Structures are given as structure tokens and as C-alpha cells.
């Protein structure tokens, strides 16, 4: 079992708990350190202020939004949310976003993890070249893909459908999943599958019965990260949908881009909160892996 726990430890990043010696020293803090703590906390608070602003705005009545100085105490109301869902038609768009994000995450996880495994284990000639190509694909500007995707989808008559958007999102989520999972799998000892195969497992069997369960935490967080990537995508959604499959980011772009008045602020804030809250919850759940995941993409280039 010891190899197993060791393998797991490899997947978990960034040591968090301070050593006992350090903790003891922290009790007799020098003034410099105290200043650092305070300034760190203040910087963090500053970064959260805009989100607090959006949160408050989303619960304000129209007349409270446009007051100077901005009110902090007001009669909270759900009017903006109701407005966003009824007049702004946010409900169906939210459903679309959920379908597309989960779909893209799932397809990319299955296809990407298998490919990531292949890259980490099989001694294919040119595995290095493939790795470099995957990394290079992260530099491809989405606009270079949007034009042909739009034309092809139009020709095939699959514009404005969930499946088209899911496929479009695979173009950037799969390479990401491949890169991340390759890292996880490289960290696992080869002996694990070798033992399984000696016991009569096929190569595929070894992958699904040994490797996948061991790397489950990593795979789950990879999935969540993929969903986040697809959840907030704007360009492809803008180009490939117009009514039936439109996502929330498109709706928000519409509200924010409406430059005539600030009248849309309440609905904009409400729609913003609806997009932000699920992602924040997911991100906090997987924060340790998230950081590593974000970093890994290029760190191991």
C-alpha cells in the first residue's frame, strides 16, 4: 500500500501546514511580520471589493443602484434576479451553459485522459513532438478557429446547437486535459499496471481498474477545471449560437455592451452573480488542485 499513498501524495501539491518549530516561532512575532500579515489581508480585501459591489448591486432596487454615495444598507430585494430571469430570459441560457459546460468537460475528460495516459506511458515515437504540439495549440488564438467553425456549422446546418458548441469547446479543453493528466500519470509508478497485467488485466483493464481509481481526485479536479473553462467562454458562443443554444456569457456581454444607459446594471449584476457563484464554489472545493492545474499547463513545458 505504501506505493499507493506515495503516488497519491505526488498528486497533492503545495505543503500547507507549517512545521511545529515555525508555528512556535510565529507566536513571538516580530513587528515586520505583523505588517506583512495586515498588508496581505488588506490587499485581499481590495481584490474582493469589486465582487462585493456586484453582490450588493444585485440585491438593490433600481433607485438604490444609482445613488451617490453608494448605499451599503438598503432594503434587499430579489427584483434584479427576477428581472434577469423573466425579462432577460436568463433561465434557458443558464440551462444551455450548464449543458454545454458539462458536456464539453465530460467529452474532454474521457478523450483527453486516455490520450494523456497514452502520452505518459506508451513509447510512441514522437511523443515529445505530440507534447509540443499540444502545448503549441494553447497558443492558437480562438479567432483563428472561429471563422471556419462558423462556416462549417452553417454549411452542415448545425448552427445554434449544444453539440456544436461542445465540439468547439473541445478544441481548447482537450489539450488542457491531456497536458494535466499526462502529468498525473507520469507521477504514478509503472509497476502498478505491470502488476495488474501480470494478474491477467489487459492494458485497457489496467488503465480503468488501477490507474483511473488512483488518480480519481486529480481527474475530478481536472473535470471541474474543464467545466469552468467552458462555462465562461464567450467568443465561440457568440459566433456559433444566436437563440436556442445561447449561453450566459453572451447575455452578459449584451447587457454590458449596451452603452446607452446604466439601466441594465441590476440585471447585469444578478446575471453576473449567477455565473460567479457556482464557479466560486467549485473552485474553492478544488482550490489546491486548481492552482497546480493552472500552473502545470506551462510549467512543465
Amino acid at each position, binding site marked *: 500500500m505504501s506505493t499507493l499513498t506515495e503516488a497519491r501524495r505526488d498528486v497533492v501539491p*503545495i505543503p500547507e501546514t*507549517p512545521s511545529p518549530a515555525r508555528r512556535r516561532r510565529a507566536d513571538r512575532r516580530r513587528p515586520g511580520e505583523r505588517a506583512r500579515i495586515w498588508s496581505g489581508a488588506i490587499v485581499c480585501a481590495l481584490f474582493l471589493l469589486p465582487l462585493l459591489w456586484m453582490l450588493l448591486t444585485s440585491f438593490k432596487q433600481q433607485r438604490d443602484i444609482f445613488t451617490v454615495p453608494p448605499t451599503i444598507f438598503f432594503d434587499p430585494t430579489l427584483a434584479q434576479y427576477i428581472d434577469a430571469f423573466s425579462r432577460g430570459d436568463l433561465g434557458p441560457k443558464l440551462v444551455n451553459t450548464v449543458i454545454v459546460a458539462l458536456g464539453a468537460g465530460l467529452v474532454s475528460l474521457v478523450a483527453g485522459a486516455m*490520450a494523456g495516459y497514452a502520452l505518459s506511458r506508451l513509447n510512441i515515437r514522437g511523443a515529445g513532438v505530440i507534447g509540443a504540439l499540444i502545448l503549441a495549440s*494553447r497558443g492558437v*488564438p480562438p479567432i483563428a478557429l472561429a471563422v471556419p467553425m462558423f462556416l462549417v456549422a452553417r454549411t452542415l446546418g448545425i448552427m445554434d446547437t449544444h453539440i456544436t458548441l461542445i465540439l468547439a469547446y473541445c478544441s481548447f479543453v*482537450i489539450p488542457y486535459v491531456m497536458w494535466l493528466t499526462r502529468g498525473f500519470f507520469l507521477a504514478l509508478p509503472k509497476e502498478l499496471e505491470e502488476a495488474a497485467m501480470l494478474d491477467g488485466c489487459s492494458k485497457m483493464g489496467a488503465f480503468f481498474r488501477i490507474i483511473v481509481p488512483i488518480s480519481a481526485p486529480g481527474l475530478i479536479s481536472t473535470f471541474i477545471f474543464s467545466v469552468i473553462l467552458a462555462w465562461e467562454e464567450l467568443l465561440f458562443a457568440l459566433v456559433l449560437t444566436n437563440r436556442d443554444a445561447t449561453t450566459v456569457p453572451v447575455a452578459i456581454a449584451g447587457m454590458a455592451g449596451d452603452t446607452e444607459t446604466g439601466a441594465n*446594471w441590476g440585471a*447585469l449584476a444578478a446575471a453576473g452573480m449567477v455565473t*460567479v457563484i457556482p464557479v466560486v464554489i467549485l473552485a474553492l472545493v478544488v482550490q489546491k488542485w486548481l492552482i497546480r492545474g493552472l*500552473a502545470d499547463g506551462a510549467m512543465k513545458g
Partner: protein
Amino acid sequence: MLPATVLLVAVLAYPLLYTVQISLSEFDLATFAPADWTGLDNYTAALANESFQNSLVVTAVYLVLALPLQIVLGFGIAYLMNAEWRGRGVVRALFLIPMVVAPVVSGGIWKMILDPLWGGVSWFLGLFGLPPIDWFGDATMSMISIVLIDTWRSVPFVALIASAALLSLPSDLFEAAKVDGANWWQTMRSVSLPLLAPIIAATFVVRWLGAVKMFDVILATTNGGPGEATNVVNLFIYQQAFRLLKFSESSAMAVIVLVITMILTFVFLSVSKKLEDRL
């Protein structure tokens, strides 16, 4: 390997080749397909297009302003947050939130806050007797605003990587420096920075890959304006293709951007690799 290959060929390789094909031909809007080959005509037209040149310059200005600022701030904040204390885990988790806010939403939030009449920032400046700033009104200010918004979104990410990096620094080197009587600046220059150089370079590459795709924030705030002051290249190509239906020219522009991005990414990657190998 197979499913991923098939999908990637379908959604990545094929569209890219199709873009190249469109860029080399005349686009027939009647059939909505590329028609006659025109060779490099679209490319010469794209390169001669002043608005396209402007969008490249705007993108470069934004990158040159934003990336170093974000790296410096990110590492600085990581240094601040590096102190040991009980609340650090919570602060770090909260600090993570701006970076998972969808770019288009962060554009929306900031558009509200920076509003010269009703926004919080104007009110705050007013407390000190300062006049409200028209953040999106003139060319310089709107670029500053874009950089500011992008920095808000990205600095937490840089700071988190940086704090992981700072934790992994070997402490004995710092103690040795202290024993030798090095002051803060000397330690920084001859111990910290050289040790951190590979990670700074790698962080730069990740941020670069994200920043060259800048689109959502600008669409939600300035929409490229005023005039063409914040019309980054992605937005410009988008407008050419989907507002003006100039598919051939926009494809040529996309290919040009792709080539420039690839070359620069390759250069940055090899520099960061070199820095890594040096250790």
C-alpha cells in the same frame, strides 16, 4: 489516444487548415464558401490595412503594460502573504475568487464601478476632492482601465504560483546569506531573484498565453473604443469577420496573428527552459 486525435483533428487541425485555405482564396458570399485562389492577395491587403496595424500595436501596448505589472505585483503580493499565520488559508482561498470570475463578468463589474457618474471609484475619489475620471472616455485612460481590469483578474493567479514558489525556496541559503551579513536588497538580488527566475519566466509564459487571447473584457467594456484605442487584434478580426463578413481578409489576419504568437511563444518557452536548466 484515438478519440482525442479524431476530435482534435476535427475541431483544431481541420479548422486551422480551412482558415489557411480561406485566407488564400476569394470568399464567395453567395455560396458561403471559398472560391477562386488568389494567392497572397489577402495577406498583402491585411498587412496594408491601417486598422489592422493599429490593432497589432494596441495589443502590443497592452501586453507590454500588463504583463510586467502583473508579474511584479503578483510576486510582491505573494511575498506579503508569505508570512505564517492562522488565517492565511482562508485569505488565499478568497484571493482565488477574482481569477475564476468569467472575463466578461469582470468587464461588466468594472464598467459599473468605474462609471464616472454613479461608480464607486468616482465617489471614492470625490472624498478626497478629486474630480471623477472618465475611465473609458479617452484613448489613454481606456487602455489604462483595460490593463487595470485584466490585472485585477490575473494578479491572484500570479500571486498563487509565486507563493508556492516562495515556499519551495531552500531556507538554508537565506540563513547563510544572513550569517554573511547580507541586507534585504542584497539577499533579494543575489539569492531570491536568481532562484525564482525560472518560475517567473514560466509564469510569464502562462500569462502571455492567456493575455494574447484578450477579447471578452474589452467587448464588455470599451468595445474597442474610443475610436480604435483599445481595439485589440482578436476583437478587430472578430469584427472584420462577423460584422463586415470579410472572411478572407480576416482569415489572413488570423493566420498572421497565429504565426506571430507561435514564434513569440516559442522564444519565451526556450528562454524559460534555459533559465530552468541553469539551476
